[in-house]
């Protein structure tokens, strides 16, 4: 029997990293599409070289993907089914087919448009803070500093805090207009304490969520930054490029892919933010912090309107897909090398 793992030790299977990098950048420069690169590489050929027609692959990889799809499809199809039903849990007598009524009702909710806008504001606001802050932090942590390990631990810690706890800490101990730390600080400075959740409700929610996701962005960006070739950096420095130039022409392009990843992953979670809102503002004042997820929450667990909440869920998925398509158009190219 063969023992393929032994062969790993033979370095000639692995092109030297530099060679790989060069090859990749050459391909990128010459504008070759991903497919040409892939096809030159038999192992990435969809059919293991047994067939050339992509649609006629032997289905050896089927089961795992199919299982995955079943995992995904069952709840989604149940949601779609319920979205066409009249079904309020507290009023079981009124069940029946509803047609598109649930969709119309959800869509005409007075809070609907603001909820969409708030959802986007939360996503964009948090992305902006975490990416700008994350780049700044990553640049800072990339410097040689004393106690680097401890600093890094401190910076990543918020990522491990569960959302309800994070919201409670910020609401009670940091932003509370009477007893919060920020209120104490402003009183110390002789200022009127800010009533965060009444005056700047959406901003407050964004700050809390951004605090939770900043470590994630920082980590990914820092890892990417550390892979930037030291020689390239030094060469640029020798050439007399100042910091701004180096950052703009060398660092930022290098980070593009990492930034894309941060945007993609965070967007997934940010579209569904609701625990922080529930704990802090309950969607108010007015609809100031009602986002789509909270609106669905209200329909499902205050009104117990299963049909309406399901319709809201389907609308949310459709919107998420629109965002996803938009994202892939805008930044997705960075993912393909």
């Amino acid at each position, binding site marked *: 029997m063969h023992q393929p793992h032994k062969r790993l030790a033979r370095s000639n299977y692995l092109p030297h990293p530099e060679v790989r990098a060069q090859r990749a950048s050459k391909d990128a420069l010459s504008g070759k599409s991903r497919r040409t690169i892939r096809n030159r590489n038999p192992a990435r050929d969809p059919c293991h070289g047994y067939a050339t027609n992509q649609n006629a692959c032997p289905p050896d990889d089927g089961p795992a993907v199919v299982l995955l799809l079943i995992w995904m499809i069952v709840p989604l199809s149940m949601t779609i089914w319920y979205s066409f039903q009249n079904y309020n849990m*507290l009023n079981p007598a009124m069940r029946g087919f509803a047609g598109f009524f649930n969709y119309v009702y959800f869509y005409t909710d007075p809070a609907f448009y603001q909820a969409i806008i708030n959802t986007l504001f939360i996503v964009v606001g948090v992305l902006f803070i975490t990416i700008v802050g994350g780049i700044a932090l990553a640049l800072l942590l990339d410097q040689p500093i004393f106690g680097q390990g401890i600093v890094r631990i401190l910076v990543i810690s918020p990522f491990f805090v569960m959302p309800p706890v994070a919201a409670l800490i910020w609401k009670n101990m940091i932003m509370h207009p*009477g007893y919060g730390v920020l209120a104490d600080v402003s009183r110390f400075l002789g200022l009127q304490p800010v009533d965060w959740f009444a005056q700047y409700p959406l901003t407050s929610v964004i700050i809390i969520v951004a605090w939770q996701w900043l470590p994630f962005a920082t980590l990914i960006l820092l890892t990417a930054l550390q892979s930037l070739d030291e020689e390239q950096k030094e060469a640029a420095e020798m050439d007399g490029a100042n910091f701004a130039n180096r950052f703009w022409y060398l660092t930022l392009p290098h980070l593009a892919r990492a930034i894309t990843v941060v945007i993609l992953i965070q967007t997934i979670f940010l579209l569904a933010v609701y625990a922080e809102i529930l704990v802090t503002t309950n969607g108010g004042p*007015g609809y100031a912090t009602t986002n789509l997820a909270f609106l669905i929450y209200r329909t499902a667990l205050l009104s117990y309107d299963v049909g309406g909440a399901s319709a809201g869920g389907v609308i949310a998925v459709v919107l998420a897909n629109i965002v996803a398509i938009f994202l892939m158009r805008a930044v997705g190219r960075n993912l393909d090398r």
Partner: protein
Amino acid sequence: MKLRSALLGACSVVALSGTALAETITIATVNNGDMIRMQRLAEDFTAKHPDIELQWVTLEENVLRERVTTDIAASGGQYDVMTIGNYEVPIWAKQGWLLELNGLGDDYDVDDLLPAIRGGLSVDGKLYAAPFYGESAMIMYRTDLFEGSGLEMPESPTWEFIGEAARKIKADNPDVNGICLRGKAGWGENMAFITALVNSYGGRWFDENWQPQFDQPEWKEAFQFYVDLMNEAGPSGASSNGFNENLTLFQQGKCAMWMDATVAASFVSNPEDSTVADKVGYAIFPDTGNGNHGHWLWSWNLAVPASSAKADAAQTFIAWATNKAYTELVAEKEGWANVPPGTRTSLYENEAYKEAAPFAEPTLAAMNAADITNPSVKPVPYTGGQFVAIPEFQGLGTTVGQLFSAALAGQMSVDDALAQAQNVATREMTRSGYIK
């Protein structure tokens, strides 16, 4: 032979004790102080009923409500005893989701329950939940500040007087808020207070045809009064203050007046937590001279879902937790002041309790004054004092509460908030088939 029968005997003993031990009931309850105390004292129950084991699910009020509602509506059958409010009881009982409580034992004395409370837990004369504690609303005020400003709390204050007093005290004592009221959005937070306020202004949520009434002058008058008063004499950040926040403010001496649930009285008068324990006076919830004092009435109750397979054990537990003997147990172990209030007439006739709880009399007066079948001077198609006992109220009340807290925070005008509330309520009531 001997060995065999011995073994058989042993087996049957094991089998017997096995079935006896199998009776484990799951109790879902809120994490209020009184319930946590009950959990602590439950050893007494298990000592008396070794065949019943208790399993607790203790949760914060809103999460608990979500969970038990989902469970009972979808017959999840996860709980044998549920702690629910008098808002849910009539709605659920009509759906057939609750068991009638008829196995509470001969010594239970159902007639001792306060009539207002008992009425709220009965449908067609059958009792569907047993009250654990009950509350109404009243004024708690600082006697020293009133004296300092030369004011005297009348026997039955009007809102007009309250408004003047709050502004005067605020002017005399810049560090103190003239009045603290709920502002945080939620059907059980600001809407509880505002609904009671509007009741006393002669307003109502719906007319006899279920038409929302936010466009009526009573709402405008009452809500404008509330917003103006809070802006001029209330604490900053009032739009995020609920019961908790106001309680803390009052305990720290930052409020001259606070109108809220009567259970608060035992917290503000407790010298361990309150800096103003010896300076608190109590008065009946204000009216507008029409004799309507808001009709606030709430109770936390224990009920058995129809899906429970252990209904007998569940009722045995409920009987233990809501009987007179439990009151005495708490009194013996933790003192009379910690007894769960507001459920039984006999408690308010008990001298030891009246002595330990200076707020006993105003509490009883408030509870007896509450009539949840006629909350407004005008006729209404619903029951409920500070809430409307229809399933839609949780969602609707919370949405309206959001609009009203926005008006309080100054992000929306009073007129806008009322107009939008009217719009939202009409939409919801039409959808649910109330408005034909």
